[in-house]
C-alpha cells in the first residue's frame, strides 16, 4: 500500500464542512459508574468518524448516547450536551423519537426482527411509519439491500424469515434496515466484525458513497478499517477521549503516546 491512510481524502473533507454533531462535556453513567468521562468532540457534516479503543473503554456507550438509546436503559444517565446542528438532543423540548428518526443505528450484534421476513425487516421502518405504497416500499427495500451488499444473495427469497440468514447476512440486513429510513446521521457499532473480507469491502465502499448525504460515526476494532474509511478518528481509553484527530494524522503522527501505543498494537 503506497498510501495507506488516505491523507488527501481526510484533509479534503475533515476541515472544510460545517460541524454537524458536537459533544460538550458528555459523561455517561451506569448507576454510579462513569463509563464515559467528560468527552468533548465534534464531527463535521459528510464525514466518516471512527471511534477506536480497547474493549470496554466506552465506545458503544458513547455511540448510544448520540441517538438517546440510553433513555431506556435502567440506571443509565447522560450529562453534558450533545448537539445536532446546534440543538441539544437532550433538551427538555426534544422528543427522543424525533432524534432517532434522524439518527440511525447499526448495533454491535445483529438484531433482525425475529418474526419478520427479509423484506419486512427492511420495510418495517417505513411501513410502521405509515408508508403503504407498495412500489415505493419495493424500491426502498431493493435500494437498501443493494446498499448493504445483500441484494444479490436474498433477492430470490425476500419472503424468507430474516432470522434464517447467516450471522454476517443478518448484520447486513440490519444495515439495510437502518438505511431504509434515510437517516441524516448513521451510527455503526462494529458493523463489519462478523463479515467476510468481501462484504466488509462492500460496506466500506457503501460508507464512502453514503458520505455524500450522511454523517457517519463508526466504532471499529480494525485499525486498517479506521484508516481506510474514516476522516477523523477518536481514541478512547477507560472512558476518556484521549485524542481526536484527522485520521491521517492520528495514524502517522499521534499526539498522545497512549494513542501511539494502542495503534501500534502495544496494548488493547
Amino acid at each position: 500500500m503506497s498510501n495507506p491512510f488516505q491523507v488527501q481524502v481526510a484533509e479534503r473533507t475533515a476541515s472544510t464542512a460545517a460541524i454537524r454533531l458536537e459533544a460538550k462535556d458528555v459523561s455517561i453513567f451506569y448507576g454510579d459508574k462513569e463509563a464515559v468521562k467528560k468527552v468533548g468532540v465534534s464531527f463535521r457534516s459528510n464525514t466518516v468518524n471512527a471511534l477506536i479503543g480497547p474493549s470496554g473503554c466506552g465506545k458503544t456507550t458513547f455511540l448510544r448516547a448520540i441517538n438517546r438509546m440510553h433513555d431506556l436503559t435502567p440506571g443509565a444517565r447522560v450529562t453534558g450536551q450533545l448537539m445536532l446542528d446546534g440543538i441539544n438532543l437532550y433538551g427538555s423540548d426534544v422528543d427522543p423519537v424525533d432524534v432517532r428518526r434522524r439518527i440511525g443505528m447499526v448495533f454491535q450484534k445483529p438484531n433482525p426482527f425475529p418474526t419478520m421476513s427479509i423484506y419486512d425487516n427492511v420495510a418495517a421502518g417505513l411501513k410502521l411509519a405509515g408508508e403503504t405504497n407498495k412500489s415505493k416500499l419495493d424500491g426502498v427495500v431493493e435500494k437498501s439491500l443493494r446498499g448493504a451488499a445483500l441484494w444479490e444473495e436474498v433477492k430470490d427469497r425476500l419472503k424468507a424469515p430474516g432470522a434464517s440468514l447467516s450471522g454476517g447476512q443478518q448484520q447486513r440486513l440490519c444495515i439495510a434496515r437502518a438505511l431504509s429510513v434515510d437517516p441524516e446521521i448513521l451510527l455503526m457499532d462494529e458493523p463489519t466484525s462478523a463479515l467476510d473480507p468481501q462484504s466488509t469491502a462492500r460496506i466500506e465502499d457503501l460508507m464512502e458513497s453514503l458520505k455524500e448525504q450522511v454523517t457517519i460515526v463508526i466504532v471499529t476494532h480494525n485499525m486498517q478499517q479506521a484508516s481506510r474509511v474514516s476522516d477523523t478518528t477518536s481514541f478512547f481509553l477507560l472512558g476518556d477521549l484521549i485524542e481526536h484527530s484527522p485520521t491521517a494524522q492520528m495514524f502517522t503522527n499521534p499526539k498522545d503516546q497512549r494513542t501511539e501505543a494502542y495503534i501500534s498494537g502495544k496494548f488493547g
Partner: protein
Amino acid sequence: MTNAQENTAVQAKTFTRTVSSARQFQNAFVGGLIALGTGIVLIPLFLIVGQVIFNGISAISVDFFVQTERQMSAITGGGGVLNAIVGTIIMVGLALVMGLLIGIGTGIFLAEFSEHPLVPLIRVMSDVLTGIPAIVVGLVVYGLLIATKLTGYSAIAGGVALGLIMIPIIVRATEEVLKLVPTNIREAGLALGLPRWKVTLSIVLPAASSGIITGAILGVSRVSGEAAPLLFTSLGNPDLVWNILQPMGAMPLSVYNLAFKALTPAQNAQAWAGALVLMLFILMTNIAARTLSKRR
C-alpha cells in the same frame, strides 16, 4: 504420539472403563426410579380417564351431541347436551375476549413499562386474583351484575366470571413471554425512529405471539371445566339458547345436574358421557397449546 502421550491415553482408557460399569449401574438405577415415579403419576390419570370412558361411552351417540337436556327423559331415554356444548363455547368465547383484551394489555404494561410505579401493585393484584376460589369469583359477579340488576342470570354474567379467572393466566403468560423477547429487538425498532407503543405492538408483541396464544389456550382449558363460577351467574339452561342475555347451560353444569338428577342407569351414563365430552374438550385444547408452543 510420544511415549508419554501414549501412556496417558492408555490410562485414560482403563480409567473410563472402570468408571463406566459403576456409572451404568447408577444410570439404570436412576432410570428405574424415574420410570417408577412416572408410573405412579400415570396410574391416577388412567384410573380417571378409564372410569369416565367406561361409564360414559354407552351414552355417547349422535343424539347426545344434537339434542338438548330438555329432551332427556327417564322413561324414553334420549336427549343430549347440545345446549351445554353451545353454552360452554359461547361463555368461554366471551371470557376469552375479555381475558385477551385485559390480560394482554396488563401483561404488556407489566413487562414493557416495568419502571411505572403502579406495576408492583398491579402484579400483586393479578397474583391475588389467581388465588381467589372460583366460587367466590361467581359470587362477586353475582353481586356486581345480577344483584344490581345490570343483567339477569345470563351468559354474559357467566362469561365475565370465567373471564375474571382467565385474566391472570393470560397476564402471567404475556408478561413472561414478553420478557423473553431480547431487548435488542426493541432497540432496533426504536432506532428506526418508531414510538415505543408502535415498537411494542408491531414488533415485540408478534415476537411473543405464540407464547401468548399458548397461555390463552391454557386459560381456555382451565375455565371450560369450571362449574362453580357459573352457578350464580349463567345458572344453567336445559334449552339451547344463543341470546347472551339469557340463562345458559354449560358442560360442567350439565355434568353436575345430570349426576344429581339421574333416575336410571341410562341417565347416569349420560352424566358420565358429559364428563367425557368435557374431558376430551380440555384435552384437545391442551394438545393444541402444546403443539403451538413447540412450533416456536
